[in-house]
């Protein structure tokens, strides 16, 4: 039989006594249409779903965690995994996020430590850290160590569905808006078109703008090595996810033989996967997705393991959360500003001179835009 641990609700009060214990965990699902749709090598996105978790304590403090999915079915699976996690949280103290993470993880062991259960824990863990930092009266990035005051912000776009002219116009628009670094999708059916598109972008943007290219797991080992030879002329900031996320050994071989830095990690979930990426010297830049890995608690461990090997850690989407994580650690590289991707926050991140600065308000420092939430909510709140 599978190993199993019964949820154990902590009776240990944190600072503030019994009133600071968790009383409610509420979730909402928002459907956000994309116009126009966004196309990456892996699929076309017509809308994004935002999964919202609010954890409320008896003393009125509320922590907010947000996550995402690209289909309502996937979002519902994550929401049901959040329901399965609730008994662990209700009545627990928020002053020990590591302990709660272990209990959430043990509670999900039967369902597997990766996959939807991990995403659910990721969203809840983020809300718990928001609460923890709010109660301490500190912005999360300072609470977690505050290694940097600002990091590079790059603008991410370059849908495969854009024409070459539209692509160049979008990239030029990012630079005109102040960004000095951009990312675009590659992985067209005919790879020669990837080369043409990059050539046009490089010509239009000049030599000084950083350009990263994301293949979303669409190439094989040999395709990557051959195409990387052609991509070398464009001085890429990095080449992202050329191979399937779990092709650990192949990634290591690619990294050893291509000239540009290699980034991967956003689709991996288990801590042991990140150990394999690092131990196998498979990446130059590690890019864990905070939701998929199970939240900020395991993200910090991945970041520390990368730091020990002098590997920078990159952000993957969710800039309002990533902003804090990037500034918390010394090897945080850059925040990804995804122009086409809306989030339900009142305060947009500010980018000045191509840099992003974290907020000083306690916790994540975000306020939910209630009108936005109500307008896009699907189904009933729970």
């Amino acid at each position, binding site marked *: *039989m*599978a*190993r*199993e*641990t*019964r949820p154990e609700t902590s009776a240990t009060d944190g600072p503030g006594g019994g009133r600071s214990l968790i009383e409610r965990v509420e979730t909402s699902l928002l459907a956000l249409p994309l116009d126009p749709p966004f196309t990456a090598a*892996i699929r076309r996105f017509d809308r994004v779903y935002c999964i919202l978790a609010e954890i409320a304590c008896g003393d009125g403090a509320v922590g907010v965690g947000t996550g995402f*999915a*690209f*289909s309502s*079915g*996937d979002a*519902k*699976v*994550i*929401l*049901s*995994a959040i*329901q*399965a996690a*609730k*008994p662990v949280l209700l009545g627990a103290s928020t002053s020990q996020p590591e302990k709660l993470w272990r209990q959430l993880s043990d509670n999900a062991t*039967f*369902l*597997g*430590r*990766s*996959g*939807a*259960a*991990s*995403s659910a824990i990721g969203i809840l863990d983020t809300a718990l850290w928001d609460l923890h930092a709010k109660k301490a009266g500190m912005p999360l990035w300072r609470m977690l160590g505050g290694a940097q005051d600002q990091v590079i912000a790059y603008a991410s776009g370059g849908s495969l569905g854009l024409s070459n002219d539209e692509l160049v116009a979008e990239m030029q628009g990012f630079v005109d808006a102040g960004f000095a670094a951009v990312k675009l999708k590659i992985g067209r059916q005919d790879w020669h078109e990837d080369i043409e598109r990059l050539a046009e972008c490089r010509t239009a943007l000049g030599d000084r703008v950083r350009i990263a290219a994301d293949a979303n*797991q669409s190439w094989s080992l040999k395709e990557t090595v051959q195409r990387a030879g052609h991509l070398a002329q464009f001085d890429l900031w990095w080449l992202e996810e050329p191979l399937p*996320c*779990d092709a650990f050994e192949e990634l290591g071989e690619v990294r050893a033989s291509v000239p540009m830095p290699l980034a991967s990690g956003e*689709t991996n*979930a*288990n801590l*042991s996967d990140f150990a394999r990426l690092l131990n196998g010297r498979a990446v130059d830049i590690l890019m864990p997705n905070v939701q*998929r890995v199970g939240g900020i608690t395991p993200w910090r461990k991945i970041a520390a393991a990368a730091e020990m090997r002098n590997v920078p850690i990159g952000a993957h989407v969710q800039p309002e959360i990533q902003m804090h994580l990037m500034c918390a650690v010394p090897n945080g590289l850059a925040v990804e500003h995804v122009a086409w991707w809306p989030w339900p926050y009142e305060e947009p991140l500010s980018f000045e001179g191509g840099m992003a600065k974290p907020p000083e308000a306690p916790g994540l420092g975000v306020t939910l835009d209630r009108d936005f939430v109500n307008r896009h909510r699907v189904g009933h709140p729970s």
Partner: protein
Amino acid sequence: MKIASLETTIVRLPFDKPIRTPVHYIETLENVLVTLRTDEGLEGISYLWAFGLSRARVLEAMVRDLYSVVEGSDPRQRLALWDAMRRDLNFLGRGGVGYFALSALDTAMTDIAARAAGEPMWRFLGGAERELEAYAGGMFLSDQIETIVEEAQGYVKQGYRSIKMRVGAADAQEDVARVAAVREAIGPHTRLLLDVVQGWSMTDAIKRARSLEPYDIFYIEDPLLYDELDAMAALASAIDTPIAAGENNYGKEEFLRLIQSGAVDIPMIDLQRVGGISEWLRAASLCEAHALPVVPHVFHEISVHLAMAAPNVLFLEHVPWWDRLFDKPPQLQDGKLRPGSEPGLGLRFAQDAIETYRAER
């Protein structure tokens, strides 16, 4: 032929006696019953199980989500559809909940394909009919020595030639005493398997395993956390008793890694985690190519078919918890199981049990 509909039902089966272990207190067994129907009226079934209603609901939501990938397709193209489902799981992550759903849909599609061919599953898969030995499992840590000794003797009387007991008590000497008592009670000719349920750590696993070796242990199952492969490989090379593991692994890729790590002598493949009948057979073939036997993890009413088609199946695990779900579950005879001759899996959900134990929405 097209897949036209999906029906899912959650059924909570109460245990006659709750299961208590240091990490378990379980009163009910939750199951997601899955039925696929085609436009021609053919049905295929499968089920998933979990401890806890909220977990069963997660699995049910995932099955309903992943169903959109196969709806409208010909279930006989099950291998191509398997691949399509796997690709669709990129977002939620391979393994975990996604693979449970992939398993349920693959098994139900394979059931339809075999029924469409008019063949029992074992013949549809190319197997030869044979009787297969089954082992009994139980003897939980929560029970006193006298109780588990009586339980062990009961299994031997029923005809089982292999029995499995739990070990991993806080006090290592207690494990030795329990294993010694059971071995003495069953005599030298019954195989004794030990299941640690991932409960040991490397600080004393080698010492504990060696202290149990005098009692002729056939294998030790899940001695360490399932993903501590380096540690498990070190344990495997330090002791003489074979190690069985794998019931927590997803997909053939994890089995390849398990085999290559040298951590396991007897891979155990779980139908609802590996990826259904199609992936179960691929994982078993992978083990065969490395000259390793395999043991199916529970699901004996389905595994009995798979064992006819996979020559390296050692024996079957027989846990009768799920018998109540079916009209005519395969019956044990003289410690052995044999598959039926009805088309497909030859299984029908017992409507009276569903009505009695159906969980409310």
